[in-house]
């Protein structure tokens, strides 16, 4: 319908007739419910939303709905109709971790997957001019000699960066004082000021603060991850097995819709998202922002997400191990 004809329809009081049954999906703007506060990560989702919207001929607006570690966004999207007009920006936290902790009553199998979007790995970084630590081995050796003396921040407590950080400490049987920062950017400030000794960073923060930080190890076993940190070594190079592989030690999101969404709508959305993700400009923009497009198809969902769920239990255990160690200091 053109704008004029819609206006005429409205004027004639035909509002009720303009229901969804008459038109082909999509005939109005779509919302993607994003689980965090606005920021760099939201910009990456917006890139995909814009491209996908262009493919569909409507706007997809990314609606920031932070709260309860992502659960609020999922609850919000679940409360909407299963008509394909509401997408879940399915971050691993609300999708896998929160149910695992008992904070949500769904599992990843309760959603219909579209395509996977992006992933970003985490890395251990110290001050650029910190000459105590040339590489990860130095850092670990120092922590072994002085347990609990160093202070580190993984950003938010309990998140994936915290899991991989704790898993690294557990694998090497070392301990450092945890200092959480809801805003990881602020942790960089305090690391530079000497308050923190190291941090678990993400590529976005690394990109902005390159000059002030030295990446000791990328906490991943994927070669691609190293490139987002200017070619820094992977943690495996130091003979450390953090007990998490593939996607597990990284942040990632998989776009989803409600389980009972009509099949033709799901197909339309999947095709549009595939086309959007395969565009070179989209690919490059995401990479430039530090996000690696993962490009897993809907049929790989079960296999990949299922595996991640198991390994995140390990990360959860690592955090519990760390808490005990810190309490025992």
């Amino acid at each position: 319908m053109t704008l004029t004809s819609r206006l005429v329809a409205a004027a004639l009081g035909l509002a009720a007739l303009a229901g969804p049954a008459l038109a082909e999906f999509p005939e109005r703007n779509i919302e993607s419910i994003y689980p965090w506060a606005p920021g760099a990560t939201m910009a990456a989702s917006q890139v995909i939303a814009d491209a996908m919207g262009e493919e569909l001929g409507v706007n997809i607006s990314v609606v920031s709905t932070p709260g309860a570690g992502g659960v609020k966004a999922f609850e919000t999207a679940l409360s909407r109709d299963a008509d394909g007009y509401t997408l879940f920006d399915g971050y691993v936290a609300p999708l896998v971790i929160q149910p695992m902790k008992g904070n949500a009553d769904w599992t990843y199998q309760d959603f219909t997957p579209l395509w996977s979007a992006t992933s970003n790995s985490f890395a251990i970084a110290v001050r650029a001019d910190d000459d105590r630590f040339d590489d990860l081995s130095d850092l670990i050796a120092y922590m072994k000699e002085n347990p609990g003396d160093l202070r580190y921040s993984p950003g938010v407590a309990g998140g994936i960066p915290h899991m991989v950080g704790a898993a690294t400490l557990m694998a090497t049987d070392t301990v450092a004082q945890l200092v959480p920062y809801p805003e990881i950017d602020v942790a960089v400030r305090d690391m530079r000021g000497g308050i923190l000794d190291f941090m678990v960073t993400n590529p976005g923060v690394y990109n902005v603060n390159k000059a002030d930080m030295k990446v000791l190890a990328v906490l991943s076993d994927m070669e691609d991850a190293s490139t987002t940190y200017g070619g820094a070594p992977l943690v495996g190079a130091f003979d450390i097995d953090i007990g998490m592989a593939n996607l597990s030690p990284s942040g990632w999101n998989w776009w989803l819709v409600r389980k009972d969404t009509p099949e033709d709508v799901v197909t339309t959305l999947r095709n549009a998202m595939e086309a959007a993700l395969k565009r070179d400009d989209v690919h490059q923009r995401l990479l430039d922002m530090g996000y690696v497009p993962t490009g897993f198809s809907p049929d790989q969902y079960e296999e990949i997400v299922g595996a991640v769920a198991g390994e995140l239990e390990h990360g959860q255990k690592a955090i519990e191990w760390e808490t005990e160690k810190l309490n025992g200091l």
Partner: protein
Amino acid sequence: MFDLLIEGAPLYFSPASVLLTVLGIIGGLVIGVLPGLGPLMGIVLLLPVAFHLDPIPAMAMLIAVYVGGSAGGSISAILLRIPGTPLAAATLFDGYPLAQKGRSQDAIGLSITASSLGGLVAGIVLIFFSPVLADFALNFAPPEYAAMALLGLLTIAVVSEGSAIKGMLAGGLGLAVATVGTDEFTQAYRYTFGTINLTSGPNLVAVVVGLFALSELFVQIEGGNFRDRPQIQKLRISFRAFRLIVNHRWNVVRSALLGTGLGAIPGAGGDVSAFVSYAVAKRLASEAEAYGEGAEGGVVATEAANNGTCGGALIPTLSLGIPGDASTAVLLGALFLLGFFPGPELFQYHADVAGGIFLAYLASNVVLIVLGIVLVPFFGTVLKVPKAWLLPLVLLLSTLGTYALQNSVFDLWVMLAFGGIGYVLRKANYPLAPIIIGMILGPVLENNFRRALLLSRDGPMIFLERPISATILAIAAVMLVYVTITTVRPRKRS
């Protein structure tokens, strides 16, 4: 200091930013002219729009509204003897008598030019001082930030209008509201009463709109006179003020500097600085007896000062992340949500953004002097719109603006609830701004407080062991003692 401007230039000088500065000034002037609404409301109503823009155009628009709104209030003060905003209350003293003498044109011209020039003077101070202060704040760590937040909040509570106790109660209420949501350290749900909607706390914008706009609408409806069209003199565009203002050049500079200095102290808003600089101008004037009877100098002093306050209030906001007043508190919140953290790192890592914001502030004041003069007849028309039209429209905009942030009807209930709270507190003569500042500084205070304790491992001594945080806390303590003394001792009030 100029490198910041040079770095910011490519960011600011885009068609979108310049256009939004112009629109922001017009919007700000209109909202300032309309009695009851002020720059804060303008900023709040445009927040949802801002979040759909790039950071610099968004900030340009919000800052322009802030500047335009602070200047616009004087027009209704001069023409109707109703200050459009509390900022313009002191403009009444001489602006209205001037208008009575048939010089409303000159009075408005003077107030606009004084506002604009005052703003520019403040802009220079802002550009000079913010990086210096930010540089100093590089030494800040969690204990200092916690102490700073505490001091900022205490000042705001003490300096706001009304009694200090009520100011502190309002600030404490803001701090309490800020604790609602998901705790950042334990990830526990705090005071959410079982609803998922509260897991990120009540939406700041919903609270601001409720406290300020909804309660104001209620008061306005109680005020009656919905269909009155005020009688005002016919207004034409006149550039005579450019010549008149030259006679007051020292007054402009002095008042603007006073305004900037007071503005930089968190809490001392534009209304305070307007009254102070009015008093100073009167004392120094060669014909002091003319003040109050329609002296040009009176209008110039108050308007230069209250726009200077805007620039001043931006200094601690940008360099420390401690807002100078309620409007800058919301600006600060906007900057957060756009992905930037005001403070030293803004100047270090996002010098272009900081520079862009400075340019936006300067440009706003330049645009103000042009549009403020050219659009005078239009403002005369705006003032004639009866309240019967205006009030429902403000309600609609408040509602949609709040809804659009998270597409949430729950936020609208939050807005309504805080509308009720705002009304009661307003009737009981509580200042409302400390609530907002408390909400914004609350997380800063709590997170840094707990972080500092984690860092120290042996309790709160860390706050006293570090010289800067100890100094800040000492200042706060002195202030507290002072307030206690003045509160306990009976005092005469006029």
